Structures are given as C-alpha cells and as structure tokens.
C-alpha cells in the first residue's frame, strides 16, 4: 500500500546540471526506504534543448513516472512555460523569481519564488541546491537527510565543496521554512534503505552474475550505460571489455570469444543490431552461444536516439538470414533484467544458440529503487554439454585419441557436445557453410539434400523441449476480470498501475504479461486469452508488432489495442482511459496523447 505517492519534475537546458539535483533527491528518498521511479526525458545533444527529469516516490512500489506532478522545479523559463500547466491544486512550483517569470498557474497551486542569487551567495552551480533544499523542506524531510546526501554526492570534490553546498542548502531550507507552506502530505519512511540502479546497470550486473568474462560493444544510445558499467568494473572482475570499430565487429568478436568457451555478451540498440544480424546467423550456424541485448529506441534509422519504443520485435525475430533457432526474452523491469541474464546464458549454453534480449530505453536508462537483498549474485551457472580441457571427470562424449568426435553429431536432442579449442583430440572446423556432423562443408562440392535436411532438423530439434525450461505466462489480478490487458517488456508495471486506477473506477482488469517471445507458450497463452472477456493489447509501437506476433503464433486476434509511438512511455492514466473508452464499444484502437511536451 502507498500512504503517499508524489512526483517531482526538474527541468532545464541540457548542461544546466539537472542530473545532480536528481541524484540528491533519489539518494534522500532511497535512504528513507522510499521506492522511486525516475525518468529523464532528454534529447540527443550535450548543451541546450530541454531536459525534464521526473522522480516519483512512495512507500509502496512505483512502476512508472505516474500521472501527475506535485512539485515543479524549473531551472529556466522554458521549463516554466512548458510544464506549469501540469500542476493541479495542492501542487507547487519552486523557482528563481529573479530570472524566471511565473505564468498563469491553476488555482490552488503554490507559487514559491526563491531569491536564488542571494541564497546561493552568487554561486550559479549551487543555485540548484537551494531549490532542492526548499523541496526537501516542503516534503517534511529533516535537513540532516539532505546534509548526508550532499556529503556523499560531493565527497569526491572535497570537504570545501561539501561545506559550501551544505551552507547554501541550509539557507534554502530556512528560507522555505519561513516563507512556504509544507505539502499537505509528508514524505513517508519505508522499512529499510533501498539501493538505486538503472536498467543498464542491472543488465550489466546480470551478465556479471552469469559469469560474463568478455564484453564488447560500440557506443550507442541508450545502451552505452552497459558498456560504461562493464568498462568501469572490468579490471577488478577480470572481464575483457573492448570497444570495437563497429557493431559488425562487435558481434563477430564476441562469437570468436564465446567459441573458445568464455561467456560473451554485448548490448546495443536497433541500429547496432541491424549491423549484427549476419553474425547472429553465424552464432546459429556454429551453434556457439552468445547473448545480445537490444536496448530499443525509436526507429527507423537514427530515429529517436533518446526516446523509448517497442519497435524492434520483428527485427529480433528475423535477425539473420535463414531459418535457425534462437531465444528472445523481454524482461519487464530492472530486477527482472538482472535475474534473466543468468537464466538466458544457461539456456544458450544448453541449446547452443544465440540469446537475444529486448530491453528498452525506459528500462535501460530508467532509475529505480531496489531492495539490495534482491540482488543475488549466487546463481546457477550451467554450461551445458561443453568440453573444456581442464575438466575433472571422464569424457562422456568419446573422441579423445581417435577420430570419432563429431562436433555436430546428429543426436536425438539435437544438442551436440561442444569442445572448445585447446582440447586435444577434438579438432573440428566450425563453418558458416552448411556442414556435415564432423564440420566438413557440404555446401560446395558434394551438396547433399539428405545431409542438408538432417542438419537443419538437428539444429531445429534443439528447440523441441525448450518450452519446459521457461515459465509460462500467468494472469495477474482478478481472474474473472472484465478486461485482460496483454503487454510485453516494460509495460508490465504501468499496466499494473492502470489496473489500480480502473479498479478505483469500479472496472476489474487483469494482465497477461509476456516475457518470453521465443520460445512462445502458445498453448498456455491461447487458453488464458480464450477464457478472457475482452482482450486489449498494450504496446509502444505503431503497427502492433506484438499483436501481429500473437496472431501468427496462436491465431488469436485481440478485441482492442492501445498503442503509443511518440517516443515517450505510457503513463498509467493513458491505459486506464483507453480501456474505459474501449469498454463502451466505440473504439478498438486508442492512441493516447502524451501531455508533457519535452
């Protein structure tokens, strides 16, 4: 349960330093044990433009940036002009009265002007600290919490900077206490301090837990955070991290690494994945397991480098020419991302195929709180039927000292024991050409339809029993609800919040969240959906990529669709209002309008 649930928006031009106040607030809230969800709306530039950070906090789980702002902190006139209209009664705006003019605020909005220059003693960089201090006061949080946060965040800059910031913060806090009313609510306390991470950090940490020892990438928004995390920790953890000349090189390099037995991984966005596709096919043909994360952004082409979308599903399904098995998973949030990485690595080792992860900007760059006890690195690492030279048991697969080792042995499971280079007596050539069981090419001289068929079927057979290894999706919420909302990837949380809003309005809704795209639990999904009263598919793209995929896998066509493709994520009310609209029977496709102009 949430006893309080509030959101703060901080906006300014890129380069005005909104990241620091954002960090300070996130730090204070997480320390207090509050759940947070922060979303930074920005553009692809380093200076100028408009950046708007929303931090929502509560003593219960928060899955999205929410629907409203309680406090607006505009650091420039532009932010004031764009966002003041979002504030309703009880909300407040904190701004520098000397440099920013307030517009027409709605009745009941507290307009709180701060003499920023005087309070910050003319220190421009510290002006944001004044606003944060006033915000902290209005939220009923004691000054010590801010003092501690400043000490930690500015620690690297030295005691003098910390002392100066604390002094300026104290000025702001006192001024607010003397001149402004606190909010009608007080920031509650949670059970214990929480940690804060981005989805890209969770992705990297999941890879580390899975035993990744080789990471290669090319910088690309919004996936670069994974590279930066890996690079930062490479030496202490013994991970080879390489920035490669392009994504073609990246995918080829990690396949080369993985082929020798190491767990290898990369993360990119759609454009990078497009360059990797031929090599993804090589992973399929070599039967060499790799994991590739696509942190989706708006497409096509360069598209929206800093905006979110679920537009790459079909590209992932079709990445690489030809017909070969792969695994595709779309974790729903940060902790799910962390836990999915080891699971996926184990499956790719078991089935010797590429594992693809669909992340999204809203996950990768979104900042949320997490209970540190949930981040469990003690995971199972299962390498499947892999033959290493330093093993300690009897060779179960035969082949040492004779010529019977067949890398691509036509087994009943389709899985053939994989020797890594360096093992004596198991020499073979991995070939992207079609090959025989021993790796010999059958594509050139002696193309043999029977052998070709055998090898296609051998690879395909690996997927025969894979469904048993992954959990089937289940319904969340009341079983006999009026409407079943179907989503995949990042929308799970915001759909849960939309369900709450619908319940408040007397409408019962449940959710079928799809995490695994390939393999797809077609039977389980069909059974659930056929038992639902009304099925509405919610996704962040124009053409209904998942709706079409669902139809192709099950023949099931939904009753309604909620889609958004403006670059911004769903807010809960977008979905709730669309459902209400569709329950009247008038509409079957809703495209919510994003009210925040960034």
């Amino acid at each position: 349960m949430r006893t309080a649930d509030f959101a703060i928006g901080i906006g300014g031009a890129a380069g005005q330093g909104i990241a620091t106040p954002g960090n300070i607030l996130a730090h204070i809230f997480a320390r207090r044990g509050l759940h947070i969800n922060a979303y930074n709306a920005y553009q692809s530039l380093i200076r100028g433009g408009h950046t708007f950070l929303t931090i929502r906090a509560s003593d219960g789980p928060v899955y999205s940036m929410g629907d409203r702002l309680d406090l607006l902190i505009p650091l420039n006139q532009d932010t004031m002009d764009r966002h003041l209209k979002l504030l309703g009664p009880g909300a407040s705006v904190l701004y520098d009265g000397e440099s920013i003019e307030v517009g027409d605020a709605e009745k009941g909005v507290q307009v709180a002007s701060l003499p920023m220059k005087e309070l910050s003693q003319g220190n421009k960089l510290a002006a944001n600290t004044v606003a944060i201090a006033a915000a902290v006061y209005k939220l009923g949080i004691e000054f010590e919490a801010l003092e501690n946060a400043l000490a930690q965040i500015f620690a690297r800059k030295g005691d003098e900077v910390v002392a100066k910031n604390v002094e300026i913060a104290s000025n702001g806090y006192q001024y607010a206490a003397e001149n402004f009313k606190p909010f009608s609510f007080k920031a509650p306390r949670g059970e214990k301090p929480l940690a804060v991470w981005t989805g890209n950090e969770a992705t990297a940490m999941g890879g580390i837990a899975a035993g990744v020892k080789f990471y290669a990438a090319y910088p690309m928004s919004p996936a670069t955070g994974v590279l930066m995390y890996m690079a930062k920790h490479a030496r202490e953890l013994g991970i080879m991290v390489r920035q490669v000349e392009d994504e073609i090189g990246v995918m080829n390099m990690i396949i080369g690494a993985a082929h020798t037995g190491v767990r290898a991984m990369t993360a990119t966005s759609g454009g990078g994945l497009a360059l990797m596709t031929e090599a993804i096919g090589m992973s399929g043909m070599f039967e060499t397991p790799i994991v590739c994360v696509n942190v989706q952004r708006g497409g096509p082409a360069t598209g929206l480098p800093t905006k979110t979308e679920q537009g790459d599903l079909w590209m992932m399904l079709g990445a690489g020419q030809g017909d070969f098995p792969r695994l595709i998973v779309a974790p729903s949030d940060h902790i799910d991302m962390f836990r999915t990485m080891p699971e996926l690595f184990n499956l790719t080792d078991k089935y010797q195929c590429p594992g693809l992860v669909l992340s999204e900007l809203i996950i990768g760059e979104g900042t949320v709180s997490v209970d540190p006890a949930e981040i469990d690195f003690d995971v199972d690492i299962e390498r499947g039927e892999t033959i290493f030279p330093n093993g300690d048991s009897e060779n179960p697969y035969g082949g040492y000292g004779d010529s019977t080792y067949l890398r691509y042995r036509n087994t009943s499971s389709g899985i053939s024991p994989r020797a890594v280079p360096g093992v004596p007596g198991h020499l073979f050539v991995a070939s992207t050409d079609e090959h025989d069981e021993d790796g010999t090419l059958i594509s050139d001289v002696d193309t043999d339809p029977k052998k070709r068929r055998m090898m296609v079927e051998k690879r395909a057979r690996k997927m025969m029993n894979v469904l048993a290894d992954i959990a089937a999706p289940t319904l969340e919420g009341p079983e006999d609800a009026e409407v079943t909302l179907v989503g995949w990837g990042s929308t799970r949380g915001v759909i849960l919040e939309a369900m709450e809003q619908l319940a408040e309005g007397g409408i019962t809704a449940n959710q079928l969240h799809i995490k695994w795209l390939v393999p797809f639990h077609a039977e389980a999904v069909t059974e659930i959906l056929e038992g639902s009263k009304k099925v509405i598919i919610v996704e962040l793209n124009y053409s209904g990529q998942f709706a079409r995929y669902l139809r192709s896998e099950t023949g099931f066509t939904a009753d309604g669709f909620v889609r958004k493709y403006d670059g911004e994520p769903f807010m809960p009310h977008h979905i709730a209002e669309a459902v209400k609209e569709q329950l009247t029977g008038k509409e079957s496709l809703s495209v919510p309008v994003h009210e925040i102009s960034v």
Partner: protein
Amino acid sequence: MTTGTLTLPVSETKPEKSSYKGKVHPDWCPGCGDFSVLAALQKALFELELQPHQVLTVSGIGCSSNLPGFINTYGMHTLHGRSLAVASGAALANHELKVVVTGGDGDGFGIGGNHFMHTMRRNLDLTYLVMDNQIYGLTTGQTSPTSPVGMKTKSTPHGNVENPINPIPLALVGGATYVARGYSGKQKHLVEMIKGAINHKGFAFVDIFSPCVTYNKNNTYKWFAPRIKILEEEDHDTTDFYGAMEKGYQWGEEIPIGLFWKNDKLASLDQLEPVLEEGGPLAYRDPRVSKEQSDKLISELL
C-alpha cells in the same frame, strides 16, 4: 555445474609432418597458388612443433578462406570479411592459442577493410595470411581492391579504372608490427615468412601473391617470376620504417618479397591488458565473481 568435462593427458609426442593434413583434399583449381600457401603453413607449424589442438585457423569467405577445412587444427570458417574480428575475440578469450587468420584480398581489404585497419592498430597477437590473387575467384572473376588499373574482369569488362590498394604501405601505416610479402612460387621463402609471423608477438601480416590461374590472366606465375626480388638477399633494414615504405611502393620490373618491417618494441594487446596478467586464458577461468566482489557492486548502489 553440469559442464561436461574430461581429463586429458597432455600430449608429449612431437607432431609429425602428417599431423596437419586435413580430412578434406582442397577443391581449389589445379595450379592455384593457394596449394602452396597451405603447404607452407603446414610446414611452418611442423617446424615450430605446434600441436594441432593449440592452433586455431580462422578464415572469412572466398576460395582461399576454405583453408581451415584443409588443415588439421581447430578451425573457424566465418563470414565474408569478418575473420579478423572473430579471431580477435578468440585470441583475447584464449591468449594461449596460436591464432592464424587466412583469407583473400577481397575478404581482407574489401569487405573486411575496416576490421583490418583496427586489428592492426590494436596490435593483436595474430598471424594474418592474405592470399592475394588480385581477383574475386569464388564469384567467378570480378575486380578486387588489389586489381591493377586497366585489368579486365567480369565486373570491369572495359578495364578497371579504380586505383588498387597497396597492402604493404597500408599495413605499415595501419600499425602492423610484422609486415611481409610472400609468393606462392617461392614456398621455402614463404615458410620462413610464416614462421616469423607466428613467432612474432603482435600483429603479423603476410601478403602473399597467390596467382589465380582461372580468372587472373594478368598476374600469372609467368608474370611474377622475373619480377620477384627477395629482400633477404639484399641489404634491407627491417627496422627502418621509411625504408620499408619505399620498398613497399616498389612495383613494376622489380617487385620485392620478404620481411619489410618488424617492430618488437610495441607490446601486443594481450600484453597490455591487465585482465590477462594472471589466471590463464579467460575461456578456462571460473566465471563466478566472489562474494566480496558482488558485495562491492551492490554497495555502490547504496
């Protein structure tokens, strides 16, 4: 861990000449220069006493890239143009393997040009043998990045008007630390070039004139024979960069083969990478992070 593992006795027996003979007889055209390159590589491995399982041969796509199938080592027959990227990953993940990359001029200087440049500057510990026949053979005779101006091919029926790449100066500028040229018609010399390349710690590049007897009627054995001049038989200083550049540009009546440039002062990437300092190949290490390490990662989030 359900890893299928096994104990293997370390082979003490010295490899024999036949140890490197592949299962498949090469399907190159009779007279193809690549036969000689294959034989030279096998001889070099034998003379260096490298066990076949310690060697990984990596190729791209093309006639010459079929080589891994014809030699008895671990092999990867990758995608067109990608051999160096794949080999880089393999060589860094298991830096105890001897990784030999083989391919053609189209594969290496055309579609794979970007990887060539960056693999050189990184000075990865790889041996790169390019069987340079100045033509696209497997696609039945189109122009290549090293086809001379005026050469008539199926894609330049009126004669090639584009300037070719000169691989030797390109490799020198790119940062390769062992730059040599060989010729299929001089196999003994080629063996020495390849041995030197494998023994070199760093990126070793050997451009090998390997005539295509089917599609290149210009650069034939007959054309090369009188022009080839062996650098080792004259006074060439392999530590003189500008001298190497000058020799690299020599073309026409006299074409030098041999070792142009060798730089032993630059560390190779695996030597520069602290992660590889101890613990053996990454590929064989325990993938787990310790409790202490993971606790630190979590504490950074607090």
